Protein backbone atom coordinates (compact mmCIF):
# COMPACT_ATOMS: atom_id res chain seq x y z
CA UNK A 1 0.00 0.00 0.00
CA UNK A 2 1.22 3.42 -0.96
CA UNK A 3 1.43 5.35 2.27
CA UNK A 4 3.28 8.38 1.09
CA UNK A 5 0.91 10.85 2.73
CA UNK A 6 1.58 11.96 6.24
CA UNK A 7 -1.60 11.85 8.21
CA UNK A 8 -1.58 15.29 9.70
CA UNK A 9 -0.02 17.63 7.16
CA UNK A 10 0.16 21.35 7.49
CA UNK A 11 -2.62 23.23 5.73
CA UNK A 12 -1.32 26.02 3.54
CA UNK A 13 -3.29 28.94 2.18
CA UNK A 14 -4.97 28.52 -1.19
CA UNK A 15 -5.43 30.95 -2.87
CA UNK A 16 -5.70 33.31 0.08
CA UNK A 17 -8.13 32.56 2.82
CA UNK A 18 -8.81 28.87 2.19
CA UNK A 19 -6.52 26.03 3.12
CA UNK A 20 -5.47 22.80 1.41
CA UNK A 21 -2.80 20.20 2.31
CA UNK A 22 0.70 21.18 1.25
CA UNK A 23 0.98 18.33 -1.29
CA UNK A 24 -2.07 19.63 -3.18
CA UNK A 25 -0.57 23.06 -3.73
CA UNK A 26 -0.15 24.03 -7.35
CA UNK A 27 -2.89 21.70 -8.46
CA UNK A 28 -6.41 22.86 -9.12
CA UNK A 29 -8.55 22.07 -6.05
CA UNK A 30 -11.13 19.38 -6.73
CA UNK A 31 -13.90 21.37 -5.10
CA UNK A 32 -14.28 25.14 -4.87
CA UNK A 33 -17.47 26.32 -3.23
CA UNK A 34 -18.20 30.02 -2.93
CA UNK A 35 -20.90 31.67 -0.80
CA UNK A 36 -23.33 28.77 -1.23
CA UNK A 37 -26.78 29.23 0.27
CA UNK A 38 -30.30 27.87 0.07
CA UNK A 39 -33.64 29.05 1.44
CA UNK A 40 -36.61 26.77 1.97
CA UNK A 41 -39.56 29.09 1.87
CA UNK A 42 -38.54 31.82 4.28
CA UNK A 43 -36.08 29.64 6.15
CA UNK A 44 -32.37 29.85 5.38
CA UNK A 45 -31.00 26.33 5.76
CA UNK A 46 -27.45 27.04 4.61
CA UNK A 47 -25.88 30.45 4.19
CA UNK A 48 -22.57 31.71 2.87
CA UNK A 49 -20.91 28.30 2.80
CA UNK A 50 -17.47 28.39 1.19
CA UNK A 51 -14.85 25.66 1.12
CA UNK A 52 -11.85 24.56 -0.89
CA UNK A 53 -10.96 20.88 -0.98
CA UNK A 54 -7.55 19.80 -2.28
CA UNK A 55 -7.18 17.01 -4.83
CA UNK A 56 -6.24 14.37 -2.26
CA UNK A 57 -7.52 15.95 0.89
CA UNK A 58 -9.63 14.22 3.52
CA UNK A 59 -11.99 16.95 4.65
CA UNK A 60 -14.45 16.85 7.51
CA UNK A 61 -17.78 18.60 7.83
CA UNK A 62 -18.99 18.66 11.40
CA UNK A 63 -21.57 20.42 13.47
CA UNK A 64 -24.44 19.78 15.84
CA UNK A 65 -27.62 18.03 14.67
CA UNK A 66 -29.65 20.17 12.30
CA UNK A 67 -26.69 22.38 11.44
CA UNK A 68 -27.28 21.79 7.70
CA UNK A 69 -24.49 19.32 6.96
CA UNK A 70 -26.54 16.92 4.85
CA UNK A 71 -28.14 19.89 3.13
CA UNK A 72 -24.63 20.93 2.03
CA UNK A 73 -24.13 17.45 0.50
CA UNK A 74 -27.49 17.72 -1.22
CA UNK A 75 -26.46 21.11 -2.59
CA UNK A 76 -23.09 19.81 -3.79
CA UNK A 77 -24.85 16.98 -5.69
CA UNK A 78 -27.67 19.23 -6.95
CA UNK A 79 -30.34 17.19 -5.20
CA UNK A 80 -31.33 20.67 -4.09
CA UNK A 81 -30.46 23.53 -6.37
CA UNK A 82 -28.74 26.34 -4.46
CA UNK A 83 -30.40 29.73 -4.13
CA UNK A 84 -27.04 31.52 -4.08
CA UNK A 85 -23.38 30.86 -4.65
CA UNK A 86 -21.33 28.67 -6.95
CA UNK A 87 -19.80 25.21 -6.98
CA UNK A 88 -16.80 24.31 -9.13
CA UNK A 89 -15.81 20.67 -9.53
CA UNK A 90 -12.31 20.49 -10.94
CA UNK A 91 -12.87 24.00 -12.26
CA UNK A 92 -16.24 23.31 -13.90
CA UNK A 93 -19.45 24.88 -12.62
CA UNK A 94 -22.27 22.56 -11.62
CA UNK A 95 -24.90 25.27 -12.01
CA UNK A 96 -27.98 23.99 -13.83
CA UNK A 97 -26.71 20.41 -13.97
CA UNK A 98 -28.83 17.52 -12.79
CA UNK A 99 -27.70 15.09 -10.10
CA UNK A 100 -26.49 12.43 -12.53
CA UNK A 101 -24.50 15.00 -14.49
CA UNK A 102 -22.83 16.18 -11.31
CA UNK A 103 -21.85 12.56 -10.73
CA UNK A 104 -20.34 12.42 -14.22
CA UNK A 105 -18.39 15.58 -13.36
CA UNK A 106 -16.75 13.75 -10.49
CA UNK A 107 -18.82 13.87 -7.29
CA UNK A 108 -19.97 10.57 -5.82
CA UNK A 109 -21.73 10.19 -2.50
CA UNK A 110 -23.22 7.89 0.09
CA UNK A 111 -26.32 8.53 2.17
CA UNK A 112 -27.01 8.93 5.85
CA UNK A 113 -29.85 6.39 5.63
CA UNK A 114 -28.29 3.73 3.44
CA UNK A 115 -29.69 3.70 -0.08
CA UNK A 116 -28.77 0.52 -1.89
CA UNK A 117 -30.50 -1.16 -4.81
CA UNK A 118 -31.67 -3.80 -2.41
CA UNK A 119 -33.21 -6.23 -4.91
CA UNK A 120 -30.08 -6.31 -7.05
CA UNK A 121 -27.09 -8.45 -6.22
CA UNK A 122 -24.04 -6.94 -4.52
CA UNK A 123 -22.11 -7.26 -7.79
CA UNK A 124 -24.87 -5.58 -9.79
CA UNK A 125 -24.95 -2.69 -7.32
CA UNK A 126 -21.32 -1.97 -8.13
CA UNK A 127 -21.97 -2.55 -11.83
CA UNK A 128 -24.63 0.17 -11.74
CA UNK A 129 -21.79 2.40 -10.56
CA UNK A 130 -19.79 1.34 -13.63
CA UNK A 131 -22.76 2.20 -15.88
CA UNK A 132 -21.23 5.24 -17.51
CA UNK A 133 -17.82 3.75 -18.06
CA UNK A 134 -19.41 0.87 -19.97
CA UNK A 135 -19.74 1.52 -23.65
CA UNK A 136 -22.24 -1.09 -24.78
CA UNK A 137 -25.08 0.68 -26.58
CA UNK A 138 -28.74 -0.19 -26.63
CA UNK A 139 -28.50 -2.33 -29.74
CA UNK A 140 -25.66 -4.38 -28.29
CA UNK A 141 -27.65 -4.80 -25.09
CA UNK A 142 -30.78 -5.94 -26.90
CA UNK A 143 -28.95 -8.46 -29.07
CA UNK A 144 -26.32 -9.48 -26.52
CA UNK A 145 -23.66 -9.18 -29.18
CA UNK A 146 -21.40 -6.53 -30.71
CA UNK A 147 -19.11 -6.36 -27.74
CA UNK A 148 -21.75 -7.01 -25.11
CA UNK A 149 -20.01 -10.07 -23.69
CA UNK A 150 -16.67 -8.35 -23.56
CA UNK A 151 -18.07 -5.27 -21.87
CA UNK A 152 -19.92 -7.33 -19.28
CA UNK A 153 -16.89 -9.44 -18.53
CA UNK A 154 -14.72 -6.38 -18.06
CA UNK A 155 -17.36 -4.83 -15.80
CA UNK A 156 -17.59 -8.03 -13.76
CA UNK A 157 -13.84 -8.02 -13.22
CA UNK A 158 -13.79 -4.32 -12.31
CA UNK A 159 -16.74 -4.66 -9.95
CA UNK A 160 -15.08 -7.62 -8.23
CA UNK A 161 -11.95 -5.53 -7.76
CA UNK A 162 -13.97 -2.84 -6.00
CA UNK A 163 -15.61 -5.46 -3.81
CA UNK A 164 -12.25 -7.03 -3.10
CA UNK A 165 -10.98 -3.65 -1.99
CA UNK A 166 -13.50 -3.88 0.85
CA UNK A 167 -12.95 -7.60 1.36
CA UNK A 168 -16.44 -8.54 0.27
CA UNK A 169 -15.89 -10.27 -3.07
CA UNK A 170 -17.33 -13.47 -1.59
CA UNK A 171 -20.67 -11.71 -1.14
CA UNK A 172 -20.91 -10.76 -4.83
CA UNK A 173 -24.03 -12.81 -5.59
CA UNK A 174 -25.99 -12.07 -2.44
CA UNK A 175 -28.92 -9.66 -2.73
CA UNK A 176 -27.75 -6.29 -1.43
CA UNK A 177 -30.73 -5.99 0.88
CA UNK A 178 -29.72 -9.14 2.75
CA UNK A 179 -26.29 -7.85 3.81
CA UNK A 180 -25.53 -6.98 7.43
CA UNK A 181 -25.43 -3.29 8.26
CA UNK A 182 -21.68 -2.76 8.11
CA UNK A 183 -21.39 -4.53 4.76
CA UNK A 184 -24.21 -2.39 3.37
CA UNK A 185 -22.27 0.74 4.29
CA UNK A 186 -19.13 -0.62 2.61
CA UNK A 187 -21.10 -1.60 -0.49
CA UNK A 188 -22.50 1.90 -0.75
CA UNK A 189 -18.96 3.28 -0.76
CA UNK A 190 -17.82 0.67 -3.31
CA UNK A 191 -20.70 1.63 -5.59
CA UNK A 192 -19.83 5.31 -5.29
CA UNK A 193 -16.16 4.60 -6.05
CA UNK A 194 -17.16 2.62 -9.15
CA UNK A 195 -18.40 5.82 -10.76
CA UNK A 196 -14.71 6.90 -10.80
CA UNK A 197 -15.23 10.16 -8.91
CA UNK A 198 -12.73 12.88 -8.17
CA UNK A 199 -14.23 13.40 -4.75
CA UNK A 200 -16.40 11.14 -2.66
CA UNK A 201 -18.86 12.52 -0.09
CA UNK A 202 -19.52 10.23 2.87
CA UNK A 203 -22.57 11.05 4.98
CA UNK A 204 -22.03 9.69 8.50
CA UNK A 205 -20.12 6.59 7.39
CA UNK A 206 -19.48 5.46 10.97
CA UNK A 207 -23.07 5.79 12.20
CA UNK A 208 -24.14 2.66 14.05
CA UNK A 209 -20.69 1.08 13.98
CA UNK A 210 -18.79 -0.37 16.93
CA UNK A 211 -15.21 0.80 17.74
CA UNK A 212 -13.50 -1.96 15.77
CA UNK A 213 -15.68 -1.37 12.73
CA UNK A 214 -14.96 2.35 13.01
CA UNK A 215 -11.23 1.65 13.12
CA UNK A 216 -11.55 -0.44 9.96
CA UNK A 217 -13.56 2.34 8.32
CA UNK A 218 -10.84 4.87 9.15
CA UNK A 219 -8.27 2.65 7.52
CA UNK A 220 -10.54 2.20 4.50
CA UNK A 221 -11.00 5.95 4.07
CA UNK A 222 -7.24 6.45 3.99
CA UNK A 223 -6.88 3.58 1.56
CA UNK A 224 -9.50 5.14 -0.70
CA UNK A 225 -7.50 8.34 -0.89
CA UNK A 226 -4.16 6.61 -1.33
CA UNK A 227 -5.29 4.01 -3.85
CA UNK A 228 -7.54 6.08 -6.02
CA UNK A 229 -5.81 9.41 -5.42
CA UNK A 230 -9.10 11.19 -4.82
CA UNK A 231 -10.45 13.57 -2.21
CA UNK A 232 -12.83 12.52 0.55
CA UNK A 233 -15.26 14.77 2.34
CA UNK A 234 -17.16 13.33 5.26
CA UNK A 235 -19.90 14.24 7.68
CA UNK A 236 -19.37 12.53 11.01
CA UNK A 237 -20.35 12.76 14.63
CA UNK A 238 -17.58 10.45 15.83
CA UNK A 239 -14.99 13.04 16.89
CA UNK A 240 -12.25 10.48 17.32
CA UNK A 241 -12.57 9.49 13.68
CA UNK A 242 -12.79 13.08 12.45
CA UNK A 243 -9.80 14.32 14.45
CA UNK A 244 -7.80 11.28 13.44
CA UNK A 245 -8.15 11.26 9.69
CA UNK A 246 -9.40 14.65 8.55
CA UNK A 247 -6.81 17.14 7.36
CA UNK A 248 -9.08 20.12 7.08
CA UNK A 249 -12.26 20.52 9.09
CA UNK A 250 -15.19 22.82 8.54
CA UNK A 251 -17.64 23.42 11.39
CA UNK A 252 -21.23 24.28 10.60
CA UNK A 253 -23.79 25.66 13.03
CA UNK A 254 -27.27 26.90 12.15
CA UNK A 255 -26.39 26.77 8.47
CA UNK A 256 -23.32 28.98 8.84
CA UNK A 257 -19.61 28.15 8.88
CA UNK A 258 -18.31 29.02 12.32
CA UNK A 259 -14.78 27.69 11.99
CA UNK A 260 -12.32 26.16 9.54
CA UNK A 261 -8.88 24.70 10.10
CA UNK A 262 -6.77 21.71 11.06
CA UNK A 263 -8.03 19.31 13.74
CA UNK A 264 -5.82 21.01 16.33
CA UNK A 265 -7.09 24.45 15.45
CA UNK A 266 -10.68 23.26 15.58
CA UNK A 267 -10.20 21.55 18.92
CA UNK A 268 -8.97 24.77 20.51
CA UNK A 269 -11.40 27.15 18.79
CA UNK A 270 -13.63 28.61 21.51
CA UNK A 271 -16.54 29.09 19.10
CA UNK A 272 -16.52 25.39 18.24
CA UNK A 273 -16.16 24.39 21.84
CA UNK A 274 -19.15 26.53 22.66
CA UNK A 275 -21.34 25.31 19.80
CA UNK A 276 -20.35 21.72 19.73
CA UNK A 277 -17.49 20.18 21.62
CA UNK A 278 -18.47 21.92 24.85
CA UNK A 279 -21.72 20.05 24.85
CA UNK A 280 -19.92 16.81 24.06
CA UNK A 281 -17.60 17.32 27.04
CA UNK A 282 -20.51 17.92 29.38
CA UNK A 283 -22.03 14.65 28.22
Amino acid at each position, binding site marked *: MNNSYEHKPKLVPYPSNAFVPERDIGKRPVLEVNHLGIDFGGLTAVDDFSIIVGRTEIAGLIGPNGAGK*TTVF*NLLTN*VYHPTRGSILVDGMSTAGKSTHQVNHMGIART*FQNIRLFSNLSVLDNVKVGLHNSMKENFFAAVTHSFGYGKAEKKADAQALEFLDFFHMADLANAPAGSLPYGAQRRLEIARALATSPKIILLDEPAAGMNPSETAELMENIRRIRDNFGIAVMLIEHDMKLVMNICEGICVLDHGKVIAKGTPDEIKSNPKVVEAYLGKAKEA
Partner: protein
Amino acid sequence: MSLFFQTLISGLSLGSIYALIALGYTMVYGIAKMLNFAHGDVIMIGAYSVIVTVMSLNLPPVIAILASILFCALLGVTIEFLAYKPLRKASPLAVLITAIGVSYFLQNIAQLIFGTQQKAFPKIIDLPGIRISGVEINGITLITLAVTAIIMIALTLFINKTKVGKAMRAVSEDKEAAELMGISTNRTISVTFAIGSALAAVASIFYGATYTYIKPTTGSMPGIKAFTAAVFGGIGSIPGAMLGGIMLGVIEQYSKAYISTTMSDAIVFAVLIIVLLVKPTGLLGKKISEKV
Protein backbone atom coordinates in the same frame (compact mmCIF):
# COMPACT_ATOMS: atom_id res chain seq x y z
CA MET B 1 -77.16 32.36 -21.05
CA SER B 2 -79.84 29.96 -19.91
CA LEU B 3 -77.79 27.09 -21.40
CA PHE B 4 -74.85 28.26 -19.33
CA PHE B 5 -76.78 28.09 -16.06
CA GLN B 6 -78.63 24.94 -17.04
CA THR B 7 -75.27 23.27 -17.64
CA LEU B 8 -73.91 24.60 -14.38
CA ILE B 9 -76.82 23.05 -12.50
CA SER B 10 -76.50 19.67 -14.21
CA GLY B 11 -72.74 19.83 -13.70
CA LEU B 12 -73.18 20.47 -10.00
CA SER B 13 -75.64 17.61 -9.77
CA LEU B 14 -73.34 15.13 -11.55
CA GLY B 15 -70.42 16.53 -9.60
CA SER B 16 -72.25 15.87 -6.33
CA ILE B 17 -72.60 12.21 -7.25
CA TYR B 18 -68.89 12.04 -8.14
CA ALA B 19 -68.00 13.83 -4.92
CA LEU B 20 -69.99 11.39 -2.78
CA ILE B 21 -68.22 8.44 -4.41
CA ALA B 22 -64.84 10.19 -4.35
CA LEU B 23 -65.18 10.69 -0.60
CA GLY B 24 -65.21 6.91 -0.18
CA TYR B 25 -62.05 6.55 -2.26
CA THR B 26 -60.21 9.32 -0.52
CA MET B 27 -61.15 8.32 3.05
CA VAL B 28 -60.10 4.72 2.47
CA TYR B 29 -56.89 5.88 0.80
CA GLY B 30 -56.11 8.30 3.58
CA ILE B 31 -56.53 5.69 6.27
CA ALA B 32 -55.71 2.30 4.75
CA LYS B 33 -53.33 3.69 2.05
CA MET B 34 -55.01 1.55 -0.59
CA LEU B 35 -56.89 2.15 -3.81
CA ASN B 36 -60.23 0.42 -3.30
CA PHE B 37 -60.99 -0.39 -6.91
CA ALA B 38 -64.20 -2.18 -5.89
CA HIS B 39 -65.71 1.01 -4.51
CA GLY B 40 -67.44 1.83 -7.80
CA ASP B 41 -69.20 -1.52 -7.75
CA VAL B 42 -70.63 -0.83 -4.31
CA ILE B 43 -72.72 1.87 -6.04
CA MET B 44 -74.12 -0.71 -8.41
CA ILE B 45 -74.97 -3.03 -5.50
CA GLY B 46 -76.62 -0.12 -3.67
CA ALA B 47 -78.80 0.64 -6.68
CA TYR B 48 -79.82 -3.01 -7.08
CA SER B 49 -80.73 -3.25 -3.42
CA VAL B 50 -83.12 -0.31 -3.87
CA ILE B 51 -84.63 -2.07 -6.89
CA VAL B 52 -85.12 -5.26 -4.87
CA THR B 53 -86.66 -3.58 -1.82
CA VAL B 54 -89.02 -1.38 -3.82
CA MET B 55 -89.96 -3.64 -6.75
CA SER B 56 -89.87 -7.12 -5.25
CA LEU B 57 -90.57 -6.51 -1.59
CA ASN B 58 -92.87 -3.56 -2.23
CA LEU B 59 -91.48 -1.56 0.65
CA PRO B 60 -91.77 2.23 0.79
CA PRO B 61 -88.89 4.27 -0.68
CA VAL B 62 -87.70 5.61 2.67
CA ILE B 63 -87.14 2.07 3.95
CA ALA B 64 -85.53 1.13 0.65
CA ILE B 65 -83.06 3.99 0.94
CA LEU B 66 -82.19 3.17 4.53
CA ALA B 67 -81.89 -0.53 3.70
CA SER B 68 -79.59 0.26 0.78
CA ILE B 69 -77.35 2.46 2.93
CA LEU B 70 -77.19 -0.13 5.68
CA PHE B 71 -76.57 -2.97 3.25
CA CYS B 72 -73.73 -1.14 1.49
CA ALA B 73 -72.11 -0.16 4.80
CA LEU B 74 -72.20 -3.80 5.86
CA LEU B 75 -70.89 -4.89 2.48
CA GLY B 76 -68.00 -2.43 2.71
CA VAL B 77 -67.02 -3.67 6.16
CA THR B 78 -67.32 -7.31 5.06
CA ILE B 79 -65.18 -6.78 1.97
CA GLU B 80 -62.56 -5.06 4.07
CA PHE B 81 -62.59 -7.83 6.66
CA LEU B 82 -62.42 -10.73 4.19
CA ALA B 83 -60.25 -9.39 1.40
CA TYR B 84 -58.18 -6.43 2.55
CA LYS B 85 -57.49 -7.03 6.23
CA PRO B 86 -55.28 -10.09 5.61
CA LEU B 87 -53.20 -7.90 3.27
CA ARG B 88 -52.36 -5.09 5.72
CA LYS B 89 -48.65 -5.78 5.39
CA ALA B 90 -48.64 -6.82 1.72
CA SER B 91 -47.40 -4.61 -1.13
CA PRO B 92 -49.79 -1.93 -2.37
CA LEU B 93 -49.90 -3.69 -5.72
CA ALA B 94 -51.12 -6.95 -4.14
CA VAL B 95 -53.91 -5.01 -2.45
CA LEU B 96 -54.78 -3.28 -5.71
CA ILE B 97 -55.07 -6.58 -7.58
CA THR B 98 -57.22 -8.02 -4.79
CA ALA B 99 -59.48 -4.98 -5.01
CA ILE B 100 -59.75 -5.57 -8.76
CA GLY B 101 -60.70 -9.18 -7.96
CA VAL B 102 -63.40 -7.97 -5.57
CA SER B 103 -64.67 -5.62 -8.27
CA TYR B 104 -64.96 -8.51 -10.77
CA PHE B 105 -66.62 -10.61 -8.08
CA LEU B 106 -69.32 -8.03 -7.32
CA GLN B 107 -70.03 -7.47 -11.02
CA ASN B 108 -70.37 -11.18 -11.69
CA ILE B 109 -72.52 -11.87 -8.65
CA ALA B 110 -74.85 -9.10 -9.79
CA GLN B 111 -74.85 -10.56 -13.29
CA LEU B 112 -75.78 -14.01 -11.95
CA ILE B 113 -78.63 -12.67 -9.86
CA PHE B 114 -80.02 -9.92 -12.07
CA GLY B 115 -78.77 -10.89 -15.55
CA THR B 116 -76.85 -8.73 -18.01
CA GLN B 117 -79.92 -6.79 -19.13
CA GLN B 118 -80.37 -3.36 -17.61
CA LYS B 119 -83.11 -2.90 -15.04
CA ALA B 120 -85.26 0.18 -14.55
CA PHE B 121 -84.60 2.11 -11.39
CA PRO B 122 -87.85 2.84 -9.49
CA LYS B 123 -89.10 6.39 -9.22
CA ILE B 124 -88.52 6.90 -5.54
CA ILE B 125 -87.85 10.61 -5.56
CA ASP B 126 -90.93 12.46 -6.75
CA LEU B 127 -90.54 16.15 -6.28
CA PRO B 128 -91.73 18.98 -8.52
CA GLY B 129 -89.00 21.00 -10.18
CA ILE B 130 -88.63 24.75 -10.03
CA ARG B 131 -87.98 27.40 -12.66
CA ILE B 132 -85.82 30.41 -12.01
CA SER B 133 -85.74 32.89 -14.91
CA GLY B 134 -85.62 30.31 -17.67
CA VAL B 135 -83.41 27.78 -15.87
CA GLU B 136 -85.23 24.61 -14.99
CA ILE B 137 -84.11 22.59 -12.00
CA ASN B 138 -85.87 19.28 -11.54
CA GLY B 139 -86.69 17.69 -8.21
CA ILE B 140 -83.99 15.04 -8.30
CA THR B 141 -81.31 17.67 -8.90
CA LEU B 142 -82.62 19.78 -6.06
CA ILE B 143 -82.54 16.84 -3.66
CA THR B 144 -79.11 15.77 -4.88
CA LEU B 145 -77.61 19.20 -4.31
CA ALA B 146 -79.28 19.69 -0.93
CA VAL B 147 -78.43 16.25 0.44
CA THR B 148 -74.84 16.38 -0.79
CA ALA B 149 -74.35 19.78 0.83
CA ILE B 150 -75.76 18.46 4.12
CA ILE B 151 -73.63 15.33 3.97
CA MET B 152 -70.46 17.30 3.30
CA ILE B 153 -71.07 19.63 6.21
CA ALA B 154 -71.95 16.72 8.49
CA LEU B 155 -68.90 14.75 7.40
CA THR B 156 -66.58 17.69 7.96
CA LEU B 157 -68.01 18.17 11.44
CA PHE B 158 -67.77 14.45 12.12
CA ILE B 159 -64.12 14.28 11.08
CA ASN B 160 -63.11 17.40 12.98
CA LYS B 161 -65.25 17.27 16.10
CA THR B 162 -66.01 13.70 17.11
CA LYS B 163 -63.75 11.21 18.82
CA VAL B 164 -64.08 8.68 16.00
CA GLY B 165 -63.33 11.37 13.45
CA LYS B 166 -60.20 12.41 15.32
CA ALA B 167 -59.14 8.77 15.52
CA MET B 168 -59.54 8.54 11.75
CA ARG B 169 -57.34 11.56 11.23
CA ALA B 170 -54.77 10.21 13.65
CA VAL B 171 -54.60 6.84 11.87
CA SER B 172 -54.23 8.53 8.51
CA GLU B 173 -51.36 10.68 9.81
CA ASP B 174 -49.38 7.92 11.49
CA LYS B 175 -50.72 4.43 12.02
CA GLU B 176 -48.10 3.32 14.56
CA ALA B 177 -48.32 6.44 16.67
CA ALA B 178 -52.12 6.17 16.69
CA GLU B 179 -51.85 2.56 17.89
CA LEU B 180 -49.55 3.67 20.67
CA MET B 181 -52.12 6.29 21.72
CA GLY B 182 -54.62 3.49 22.22
CA ILE B 183 -56.55 3.90 18.96
CA SER B 184 -57.65 0.63 17.39
CA THR B 185 -56.51 0.82 13.76
CA ASN B 186 -58.68 -2.09 12.71
CA ARG B 187 -61.82 -0.58 14.13
CA THR B 188 -61.05 2.79 12.63
CA ILE B 189 -60.51 1.24 9.22
CA SER B 190 -63.82 -0.66 9.54
CA VAL B 191 -65.64 2.57 10.39
CA THR B 192 -64.04 4.26 7.40
CA PHE B 193 -65.19 1.52 5.05
CA ALA B 194 -68.69 1.66 6.53
CA ILE B 195 -68.96 5.43 6.04
CA GLY B 196 -67.41 5.34 2.56
CA SER B 197 -69.77 2.59 1.43
CA ALA B 198 -72.80 4.29 2.96
CA LEU B 199 -71.91 7.43 0.99
CA ALA B 200 -71.65 5.26 -2.12
CA ALA B 201 -75.17 3.99 -1.43
CA VAL B 202 -76.45 7.56 -1.24
CA ALA B 203 -74.67 8.30 -4.52
CA SER B 204 -76.22 5.21 -6.07
CA ILE B 205 -79.74 6.46 -5.30
CA PHE B 206 -79.07 9.79 -6.99
CA TYR B 207 -77.34 8.06 -9.86
CA GLY B 208 -80.25 5.65 -10.32
CA ALA B 209 -82.79 8.44 -10.06
CA THR B 210 -80.94 10.55 -12.63
CA TYR B 211 -80.00 7.86 -15.16
CA THR B 212 -82.98 5.55 -14.44
CA TYR B 213 -81.32 2.30 -15.59
CA ILE B 214 -78.92 -0.03 -13.78
CA LYS B 215 -76.81 -2.96 -15.02
CA PRO B 216 -73.97 -4.98 -13.45
CA THR B 217 -71.25 -2.78 -14.96
CA THR B 218 -73.01 0.48 -14.05
CA GLY B 219 -70.61 1.20 -11.21
CA SER B 220 -67.35 1.07 -13.09
CA MET B 221 -67.40 4.30 -15.13
CA PRO B 222 -68.67 6.59 -12.33
CA GLY B 223 -66.25 4.70 -10.10
CA ILE B 224 -63.31 5.54 -12.33
CA LYS B 225 -64.48 9.14 -12.71
CA ALA B 226 -64.84 9.52 -8.96
CA PHE B 227 -61.41 7.97 -8.45
CA THR B 228 -60.09 10.53 -10.92
CA ALA B 229 -61.92 13.23 -8.96
CA ALA B 230 -60.29 12.09 -5.73
CA VAL B 231 -56.82 12.24 -7.31
CA PHE B 232 -57.72 15.56 -8.93
CA GLY B 233 -58.51 17.06 -5.54
CA GLY B 234 -55.52 15.40 -3.89
CA ILE B 235 -56.11 11.84 -2.76
CA GLY B 236 -56.41 11.48 0.99
CA SER B 237 -57.89 14.96 1.37
CA ILE B 238 -61.61 15.12 2.18
CA PRO B 239 -62.22 18.71 1.03
CA GLY B 240 -60.12 17.77 -2.02
CA ALA B 241 -62.52 14.95 -2.92
CA MET B 242 -65.50 17.28 -2.60
CA LEU B 243 -63.88 19.98 -4.73
CA GLY B 244 -62.49 17.45 -7.24
CA GLY B 245 -65.83 15.68 -7.64
CA ILE B 246 -67.80 18.85 -8.21
CA MET B 247 -65.23 20.32 -10.59
CA LEU B 248 -65.09 17.10 -12.58
CA GLY B 249 -68.88 17.02 -12.94
CA VAL B 250 -69.02 20.67 -14.00
CA ILE B 251 -66.16 20.28 -16.51
CA GLU B 252 -67.79 17.18 -17.95
CA GLN B 253 -71.19 18.82 -18.43
CA TYR B 254 -69.70 21.99 -19.92
CA SER B 255 -67.60 20.08 -22.41
CA LYS B 256 -70.67 18.05 -23.34
CA ALA B 257 -72.72 21.20 -23.83
CA TYR B 258 -70.17 23.41 -25.53
CA ILE B 259 -67.49 21.23 -27.15
CA SER B 260 -68.44 17.67 -27.96
CA THR B 261 -70.60 14.99 -26.37
CA THR B 262 -68.37 12.15 -27.47
CA MET B 263 -65.12 13.83 -26.49
CA SER B 264 -66.21 14.89 -23.01
CA ASP B 265 -64.40 12.04 -21.25
CA ALA B 266 -61.17 12.82 -23.09
CA ILE B 267 -61.47 16.47 -22.07
CA VAL B 268 -62.09 15.57 -18.42
CA PHE B 269 -59.05 13.28 -18.35
CA ALA B 270 -56.90 15.82 -20.19
CA VAL B 271 -57.75 18.47 -17.57
CA LEU B 272 -56.80 15.97 -14.87
CA ILE B 273 -53.41 15.35 -16.47
CA ILE B 274 -52.71 19.06 -16.82
CA VAL B 275 -53.65 19.72 -13.20
CA LEU B 276 -51.41 16.90 -11.99
CA LEU B 277 -48.50 18.13 -14.07
CA VAL B 278 -48.80 21.56 -12.52
CA LYS B 279 -49.62 20.27 -9.03
CA PRO B 280 -48.32 16.70 -8.80
CA THR B 281 -50.28 15.91 -5.63
CA GLY B 282 -53.63 17.28 -6.77
CA LEU B 283 -55.44 20.52 -5.96
CA LEU B 284 -55.52 20.20 -2.18
CA GLY B 285 -53.11 17.31 -1.68
CA LYS B 286 -50.28 17.59 0.78
CA LYS B 287 -46.85 18.00 -0.70
CA ILE B 288 -44.78 14.98 0.17
CA SER B 289 -41.06 15.39 -0.31
CA GLU B 290 -38.70 12.51 0.18
CA LYS B 291 -36.02 13.24 2.74
CA VAL B 292 -32.57 12.65 1.34
